[in-house]
């Protein structure tokens, strides 16, 4: 019973992932694509969580935190690149 529910959840999350990928390919501006990438990361967190419940293992729980941290850092880097053109400042000018 539970495995059926989890499989349905996996399919629905895959559909959400496909929707985000459509926005990633189609998005007219760069900001749309960055937000689509952020959404893909969060959907991947949910996928890993449901998959680790489906496989009855706790070995993937670090992966969840890891994807969360990497998605955050990647989004911040892209946002700073869009806004200022540089990712890493050498020295702050103010």
């Amino acid at each position: 019973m539970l495995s059926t529910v989890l499989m349905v959840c996996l399919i629905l999350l895959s559909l959400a992932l496909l929707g985000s990928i459509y926005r990633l390919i189609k998005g007219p501006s760069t900001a749309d694509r960055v937000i689509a990438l952020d959404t893909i990361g969060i959907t991947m967190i949910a996928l890993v969580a449901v998959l680790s419940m489906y496989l009855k293992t706790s070995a993937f729980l670090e992966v969840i935190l890891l994807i969360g941290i990497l998605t955050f850092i990647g989004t911040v880097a892209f946002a700073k690149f869009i806004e200022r053109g540089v990712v890493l400042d050498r020295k702050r000018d103010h």
Partner: protein
Amino acid sequence: MRTNDVILKTVTQLVTFIIIIFSIYVFLSGHHHPGGGFIGGLMTAAAFVLIGLAFDIETVKKIIPIDFKLISATGMLIAVLTGIGSFVFDANFLSHTFDYFHLPLLGETELATAVLFDIGVYLVVIGITLTIIFTIGEDQ
């Protein structure tokens, strides 16, 4: 124009500690659970990259006042010395051992000499990652 990124700076000051604590946890749990020196070093480097994103490279160099190349060299030295250290006990190169000790706060704990080798890997990964990223970031 002055940019006002107070939200990013405040979030960075909080999140950096969480990332570093998570990296130390992943590093220490690598013997029996997923993790180890490589991914722990990468997460610590990610925390410093986040500080570099929110502030600047000078801030990170003030936090770590050592040359990054020296960190990776120290890690390599530690990894080689744990290999050579097995000669002292008349064993082969890189022979590792473990034993159970009674620590005051943790109780019965398994301490393995493979952790010393992993500290070397950890420092090498931190040093090389920060060297690569900040060398690329500096020349504009």
